[in-house]
C-alpha cells in the first residue's frame, strides 16, 4: 500500500484534531514549565522526545496490519501481567504508588502501557465470544480476564488507572454485544457493594483497601474547604484549580500570564491539573475548544470503529476511545471540581512519557484499523 492511498484513506479530521491537541498541549506545558523550572523548556523538551518516540511507534503500528495482533493477543495479555507483576516486585514508589520501573527520572509507568495492551488482548477475547455474551455466566470469564490486571494495578495502588480498566471493560463489552441488562446489573451490584463497604467502614470500622486519608482525598471535592485545614489541606488542589479556571473568564489571562499558574498556586500544574492552565490562560475559548477537539477525536474514532472490516478492529478502537473518554472526563471533571482528585493525566496534553507513548500507540492502532480495515478500500 503506497503513501498516496494511505493519505487518501486516512481519517483527516481525526489526525487534525490529534495534532491540534498535541500543539495546544505543548503550548500550555511551556507555560507551566516556566512557572516550575529554571530551564524554561525542560519539560517541553522531554515531552517532545516522548512525542517523537510515540509517533515513530504509532506510524509503525499504523502501517502494520492490526489483525495480525489478534494472533498474539494471548502473549500480549501475559506480557501485561508480567509487566504489572514486575512493577509490584521491583518498582519504585512515587507519592504512595508503586508504579515506576527504571532508573532515575527516566522510568516508565507500566500501568499506562498496560491499558492499551489489555485493550488489544481483550478485543480478541471478546470477538472470539461473539454472540455468547448474553448471560451473567457467559460474561463471568470476561470479568475475570480484566479482573487480574485490575487487581494488580489496585495493588500498586493506583485507583485511577484501575477504574480506567473497569470503564474499558464495560465499554468494549457493550459494543461487543453483551446484554445491556446484565451489564447494568453488574454495575449496580458493584456500586451497591462499594456503598455497603463504605457504610460498614464508617459505622463499624471494617477493613477497606483504602486508608482514611485516601478516602478523604476522594471525597473532598464535594466540599473542598471542609478538609480540616480550611482549604489548605486535601481541598487545596480543587480550590486552586477552580480559582484558576474561574478567573480565566472568556478570553483567559494569556499564555504565560496566568497568576495561579505563574505564582505556583496551582499544584501539579504540568500533569494532573494542566487543564486548569488551559482554563486560566486561554479562557473559555481554549478550554471549550479543547473539549471540542476531544469530541472530534472520539467521534472520528467511533466512525473508524463502525467502518472496521471486523469486530476485532472495532473493539480495539472502542477500547482506545474508552481510555481517552474516561481520562478526559475524569481529568477535566476533577479540574472543574465535579470529580474526585485522582492522578489521571489528560491525554496528549499532560506531561508524562509513558502516557504519551501509550496514547500515541492507541492512536496508531485506531489509524491502522482506519487504513487496513476500511471496507470501502477493499
Amino acid at each position, binding site marked *: 500500500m503506497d503513501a498516496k492511498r494511505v493519505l487518501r484513506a486516512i481519517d483527516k479530521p481525526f489526525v487534525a484534531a490529534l495534532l491540534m491537541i498535541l500543539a495546544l498541549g505543548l503550548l500550555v506545558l511551556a507555560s507551566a514549565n516556566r512557572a516550575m523550572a529554571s530551564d524554561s523548556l525542560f519539560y517541553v523538551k522531554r515531552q517532545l522526545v516522548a512525542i517523537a518516540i510515540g509517533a515513530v511507534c504509532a506510524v509503525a503500528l499504523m502501517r502494520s496490519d492490526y489483525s495480525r495482533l489478534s494472533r498474539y493477543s494471548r502473549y500480549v495479555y501475559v506480557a501485561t501481567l508480567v509487566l504489572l507483576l514486575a512493577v509490584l516486585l521491583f518498582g519504585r514508589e512515587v507519592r504512595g504508588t508503586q508504579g515506576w520501573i527504571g532508573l532515575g527520572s527516566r522510568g516508565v509507568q507500566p500501568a499506562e502501557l498496560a491499558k492499551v495492551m489489555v485493550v488489544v488482548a481483550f478485543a480478541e477475547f471478546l470477538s472470539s465470544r461473539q454472540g455468547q455474551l448474553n448471560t451473567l455466566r457467559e460474561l463471568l470469564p470476561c470479568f475475570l480476564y480484566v479482573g487480574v490486571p485490575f487487581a494488580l494495578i489496585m495493588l500498586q495502588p493506583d485507583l485511577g488507572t484501575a477504574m480506567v480498566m473497569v470503564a474499558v471493560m464495560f465499554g468494549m463489552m457493550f459494543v461487543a454485544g453483551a446484554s445491556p441488562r446484565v451489564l447494568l446489573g453488574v454495575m449496580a451490584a458493584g456500586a451497591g457493594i462499594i456503598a455497603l463497604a463504605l457504610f460498614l467502614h464508617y459505622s463499624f470500622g471494617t477493613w477497606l483497601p483504602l486508608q482514611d486519608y485516601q478516602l478523604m482525598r476522594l471525597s473532598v471535592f464535594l466540599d473542598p474547604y471542609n478538609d480540616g485545614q480550611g482549604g489548605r489541606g486535601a481541598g487545596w488542589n480543587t480550590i486552586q484549580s477552580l480559582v484558576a479556571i474561574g478567573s480565566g473568564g472568556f478570553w483567559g489571562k494569556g499564555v504565560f500570564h496566568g497568576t495561579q499558574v505563574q505564582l505556583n498556586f496551582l499544584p501539579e500544574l504540568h500533569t494532573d491539573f494542566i487543564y486548569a492552565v488551559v482554563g486560566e490562560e486561554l479562557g473559555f475559548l481554549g478550554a471549550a475548544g479543547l*473539549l471540542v477537539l476531544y469530541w472530534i477525536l472520539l467521534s472520528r474514532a*467511533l466512525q473508524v470503529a463502525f467502518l472496521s472490516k471486523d469486530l476485532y478492529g472495532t473493539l480495539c478502537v472502542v477500547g482506545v476511545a474508552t481510555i481517552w473518554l474516561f481520562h478526559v472526563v475524569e481529568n477535566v471533571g476533577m479540574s472543574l471540581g465535579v470529580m474526585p482528585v485522582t492522578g489521571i493525566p489528560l491525554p496528549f496534553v499532560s506531561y508524562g512519557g509513558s502516557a504519551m507513548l501509550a496514547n500515541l500507540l492507541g492512536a496508531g492502532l485506531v489509524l491502522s484499523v482506519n487504513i487496513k480495515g476500511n471496507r470501502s478500500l477493499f
Partner: protein
Amino acid sequence: MKSRELKLRLQQYWYVCAVLLALLLVRLAVVQFVQNEKYETASKSNRIRLVSIPAPRGEIRSRDGLVLAKNRLVFSVSLAYAEAGLDSTVVERLAAILGTQYPQITADYIRGLVEQQRYRLYEPVTIVRDVDWPMVVRLEEQRRQLPGVTVAVEPLRYYPEGTLAGHLLGYVRAIDAEELAAADRERYDIDDVVGKDGVEKTYESELKGNDGARRVEVDVRGRPVRELVTLQAEPGNNLELTIDSRLQRVLEKSIEETLAYDQQKYNRKAKVAAAVLLDVKSGAVLAMASYPAFNPNDFIGFMDSATEAYYYPQGSYDPLNPGAATNRVLRALYPPGSTFKPITALAALESGEATAEEKVTCRGSYWVKPYIKCTAAHGSVNLARAMAVSCNTYFQEMGRRAGHQGLIAMADQLGLGKPTGIDLPGEKAGLLPTPEWKRETNAVLVDRKYDRLRQELEDKYARLLAEAKDEAARAKVEKEERSARARLEAEYRIDYRFNTTWQAFDTFNMSIGQGNNSYTVLQLASYVAALANGGQRMQPFVVRRVLTPSGQLVRENHPRLLQRLEVDAANLEAVRQAMLQVTQPGGTGYALFAGFPAQVRVAAKTGTAQTGRKGDVRNKEFHGVFVAFAPFDDPQVAFAGVVEYGQHGSTSAGLIARDVLEQYFNIKDHLAPAEAPREPTGGANPAVPASPPVANGTGEQE
C-alpha cells in the same frame, strides 16, 4: 453480530460520549461565566498583599534649630515568609544566636511573636529592633543556615540630646489596646507607636504622618514577586519648639548644681526641683526643666528594673528616690510661700484700704489672733520695704484690709488654682482655697469626726446601763446620757461652724502664701509674667510652629491672651517697684543679682514653703521658692522655680534664676568650655563675696 446492531450500539456509545463531554462543557461555562467574579476575587486575594510603609515621625527641634527628637535608622531582625510555616530548626538557631545578647529571646518567644501576628504573616515578623553591628555580622555570616531571617533597616525614634528637655518632649511607645480602640483606624495599626507624654502626645496627630502602602504580588509561599501599586508614606510634620536649647541646657545644669549644693549645705533630701522661664510678652516657654531628669530614650525597647525604679518608684513616697517620670513644672503642687505676697499687696491697694506709702509697724508678730510670728521685728515698713524684707506682719495686715474675697479674686485673675492650658498633657489645676471649698471639705471631716464620737457615747452608756444594778442607778445613767448627748451636739454645732466657715486666720495664712494654697510652678511663672508685662496674662505654650517635612509652615501658635488684669496701673506699678526692692541692697535677693549690669535690673520675690509631708520636721524643713522677672524697665522674661528642701528661696531656686538670667542677658556664658568650678555666687562680679549668696540669711518663714 449484525451490522445493524453494531451500528446501534456504537451510536448509543456515541451518545454517552456526547452527553459526558456536554456536561463538562456546561460545568466549564458555569465556572467561567457565572462564578467568574467570585474566582477572580479569590485569585486576587491569593496573590495580592497590602504591606504598609511606616511614615517617618516628624522631628522636633528647638527654637534655635537643635534637633531634639528624630528618627534613627536601626537594624532590626525579622522573620519573613512565616505564612508558609515555621521552620523549627531556623527558629532554634536564630534564638541561639540572638539569645547570647538578649536573654529573653528564646525559641518559644519567637513562636509567640509569630502567633501574635497570625493574621498578617505575609508581613515579616519583627523579632528584635536596634541590634548592633557585630550581631548583624553574625547573622549575615550564617545567612545560608537561616532562610527567611532578614536584617532590615527601619526608622526608630531617637532623642539625640538625651535628657535635654526630656519631660517636655515626652516619649513614644507601642499603642495599647485602649488607645487603638479610640484611634482613627485609617491611620493607626496594632504595631504603631504613639506619643504617650509631653509634646509627643499633644502633637501626636501632627507628628504621626500617614503610612503608605504597597500592593505586592506574592507567590504561593508568600514571597513578593512584583510591586503593583505603591502609595508613598507621608512623613509627619516637624515641630519647632519655643525652647531655646542653650537656655534649657543652662537651666538643667544649674538645677543639677544647685541641688548638689543644697544637699550638701542644708538637706540631703534636696533631690527635686522644677523651674520654668517664660517670655512675658507672648507666654512662650523659653526653658522648662524638672529634676530628677527624664531621658525619653529610656522608654524605647525593653526597660530594665533599675531604670523602671528610677522613673516609677514602688511603695510609699521616699524623698531620696522621688521618681523621675513626673514633669513637676506642671504636675506637682507647692504652697507658694512668700511669692504670694505681691498678690496680697495688689489686692490691698485695689481695695482702696491701703496705699503703697502707708506704713505698718512690725514688732515681731501680727497683733491679731493667732498672732503669727514674723521673721524679725521690722519696725515701721511701707510696701517696698515690706516686700524687700518679706515682712509677714505687713502682709497679714494688707490681707485683712483686702479681705479674703479681694485676695481670692486677685489670685483668680492671675490664674492661680486653674490650669493655664499649656500645650502639654497632664497639667494640674492646683488649689486656691475659697469659703465654699472650705465648707465642702471640712463639713465632711467634721461630720465624720462627730459620727464617731456619737457612736462612742452610745456604746459607753449602753454598757453603763447594762451594768446598772437597780432602777435608780439606771435612771441616773439615762440622765447622764441625756446631758452628755446635749453637750456633744452643742460642741458639734460650734465645731462645725468654726471649721466650715472662713476664719480671719485663713485670710492671714493666705496673705502670706501658707495654708491650703498650692499651685504649679507654671502658674507662678504665668502670674509673675502678667505682673511684668503690665497686666496681660498670656497662655504659656511650648510649640512655636508646625512645619512640613520640606519646611513649609503648616500653622503657628500665636500668643493668646487669657486675661487682662482689671487693676489700676499705678497700683500695679507700685507692686512691681516693691518687687524690684527685693534685689536691691537690704532685700532678700540682693546678693543674687548684685553683679548684674544697671540696664538689667531684676524684680523678684523669694519664698519658703512648708513641705507638709509626713516624716518631715515641721518648721525646720522647707521648700525654696523663687519668682522673678527682668529687665525691670522693659520686662522680657519671667522665672518661677521650686527646689524641694532648698530651705530658702534665695539659696536654692534663686540660684537657678540667677544662672538662667545671666545666660539670657549674656552676662555670663554658663556653657563656655573652660568653666571654673562652681561657686554659689554670681561669677561675673568679683565684688560679690564667695560665700552663700544670702549674706544675712534673711529668713522669711512666718
